[in-house]
């Protein structure tokens, strides 16, 4: 939390030194860049339809062809990156923040609270995601927010468990014991001393989790439970592509490629981040 700028620079430099990490950094950078500046990059309005020009293959005017409504697939892919980040970032960071808080409370707080929270985590984890998602979507209706909610709810337990384990390990370490004997408040111990030591591990987990979130959105879209049309998510693209695969393969390619590239980017970034944040693991290699 209080990492100074130079520390962040050290981390980035550390990641960039690893070839895979460098690749991850470049890919993620490109995705974030294209998402932020999507409006300037896209050659067409991603929801503007032109039915006469539908289902075309790639050409100079439409780099990835067009969909069943004559919308430019490339523009939809780029804007879809924005949607993916809009789902993935709040979901992952939300889950991380809540999981971290609950996990630390479970690890540091009274035993009954720990038991209760662990039971809650295990319960959520025990539903197959799709079943849980279906019930939630049926309950509140499909939308971007619903997808975020589902993803968040299903991944809180993972962060919570890791945060709890870390807290348990730290709680008996010498410097925490020293703090406690000096009468530091629980909030202070958790916030000032434990948090910085736990957050790194969770950040690694979060980076690696983003592709899973994107894939989950695609799965929900396939079942007709994703974001609202005409929002161009990668999952919606794949769903249309699935239905039209023998008319035009370009929708599946257009929706599938960015998911694979994003997965590579975030995974490599996450792995090299781990190597930097947690040098112990590196030592073994």
């Amino acid at each position: 939390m209080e990492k100074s700028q130079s520390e962040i620079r050290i981390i980035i430099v550390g990641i960039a030194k690893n070839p895979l990490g460098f690749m991850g950094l470049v890919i993620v950078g490109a995705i974030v860049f294209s998402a932020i500046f999507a409006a300037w990059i896209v050659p067409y309005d991603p929801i503007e339809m032109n039915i006469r020009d539908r289902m075309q293959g790639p050409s100079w005017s439409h780099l990835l062809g067009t969909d069943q409504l004559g919308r430019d697939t490339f523009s939809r892919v780029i804007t879809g990156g924005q949607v993916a980040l809009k789902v993935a970032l709040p979901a992952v960071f939300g889950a991380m923040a809540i999981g971290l808080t609950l996990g630390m409370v479970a690890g540091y707080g009274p035993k009954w609270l720990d038991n209760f929270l662990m039971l809650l985590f295990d319960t959520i984890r025990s539903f197959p995601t799709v079943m849980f998602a279906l019930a939630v979507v049926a309950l509140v209706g499909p939308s971007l927010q619903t997808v975020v909610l589902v993803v968040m709810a299903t991944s809180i337990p993972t962060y919570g468990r890791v945060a709890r384990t870390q807290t348990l390990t730290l709680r008996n370490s010498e410097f925490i014991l020293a703090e406690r004997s000096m009468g530091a408040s629980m909030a202070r111990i958790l916030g000032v001393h434990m948090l910085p030591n736990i957050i790194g591990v969770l950040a690694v987990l979060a980076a690696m989790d983003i592709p899973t979130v994107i894939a989950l959105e695609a799965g929900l879209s396939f079942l007709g439970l994703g974001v609202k049309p005409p929002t161009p998510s990668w999952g919606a693209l794949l769903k249309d592509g699935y239905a039209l695969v023998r008319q035009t393969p370009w929708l599946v390619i257009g929706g599938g490629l960015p998911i694979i590239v994003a997965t590579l980017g975030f995974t490599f970034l996450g792995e090299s981040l781990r190597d930097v944040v947690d040098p112990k693991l590196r030592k073994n290699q």
Partner: protein
Amino acid sequence: MKIEWTKTPIGRRKFLKGATALGATAALPMGFGGSALAQESGTLRVRAYGDAPNMDPAHSVGVVEEEIHSSIYNKLVQYKPGSEWGWQLDAASSIEQVDPTHIKFALRDDIGFTNGHGAMTAEDVKFSFERIIADETESPNKPDMGPLSHVEVTGEREGTIVLNEPFAPLWSIALPYITGNIVSKSAVEGAGGRINSEPVAESGPYLRASWSPKAKTVLQRNPDWKGDAPAWDTIEIYPIDDENTAEIAFEAGELDLTRVSLGSVARYRDGVPNGGTLVENPSLFYVWLGMNLDHPKLQNQKLRQAIQHAIDVPTILEASYFGAADPSTGIIAPGLAGNRAEGLVAAEANVEKAMALLAESGESNVTLTLDILNKTTYTTMAQVIQAMLAQIGIALEINVLESGAFWASGDNENLQLVLNRYSMAPDPSYATAWFTSAQAGIWNWERFRNEEFDAIHSAASAETDTAKRATMYQRAQDLMEESGAYRFITHEATPVIHSSRVIPALRPDGLSLLRYFGKA
């Protein structure tokens, strides 16, 4: 008096939301039948869009079950395969309408039930038909039998069907469809009055040899069948609800016949793999955009009319059905009595008129929601409508619902616009039944209430003069359209592909009549 309805087909009503009731996530209740390249030359492999767990015609919920029931049970008359609606004799050796309320029939003497339940007699016919209308059966198909009073048994194999009043759909729905199936009296009574997943006694050209839930149903030739021998020894019916999967299975040579998606028609017109054939059939289903007349935002008739005129139906059909379906003028398809040659609002949009109507209405900054089912066809359609309404300055938000929530829209008072599709049987009364005042808030989601419409609906079923009957139903649809609550879109189509081994026997709307399938 014999009612001829081959020339002027009378529709029959069928089950509206068959798919929901069946539980298929898809509300695509048409795809059916077909056969596949089986290794054994005697096996026909066809696709059904859902599983058929129930062998009781009284509790059948639609075409998926009927396709099996009509193979393992007999009816007095069966639908005739071909492009025009008509019937042919089955268990009846003769049948005649002696007056508007009496129908005399005689049974063939060579039909017997399995499991030792003996020959089929007039008692079985009486039992089967009266069972449908009996309260304790709780049959959802009771309306199909309409004003049936009773069946008089006049001989071992002779009887008379007696109606309380004339009933036009008798020949188009009651006898040749779900409620016409004849079951064995002794077998059903022996089973406590209800058939579940096991047919207690069969009599048709096929017997249901096995059922693996959600995997397949196998029909096998009935060795004791004395009628015209069916061409195939074995029929395997696969429940597949995903159209893409069904098409892939056909192309992989694992199905002989399947309904295909309208989006694939253009591709199959250029050639069907494995030397197969594409058959394009019309469909009776109807798709429309409805507006909830009880919603505060939709009180202004000019606004509703503006919406009617702003929507360009040909564009919608091009986008979501790839041009493989034609615009409709109402809820009654061509080929049925009461079909309108033209609607009051043209299929093409009239944007100027729409804008003028909107200006007249005095409404501004209109924002509405459109509820749809979560299928690609409807999301595509909804996005086109969204763009069209945006042209006249109406902002539309699309609500995508999974099928359980969607089909519960009847009691959703906040419903505004909705894209809907009901299935249909070949009688116009089947369509108007859902739009009466009594159905408001149940299946009449627009909450359209019109006394004249209600009167037409109840009078038209008893009208046996086909021309008069047609005029009545045309008027009924005018009333619907005038209310501004409806924008009729299409009746879709039922494109079917089949392999070169098969000579399919299809109803005019493309559904399979398996017992009449031939070998090429």
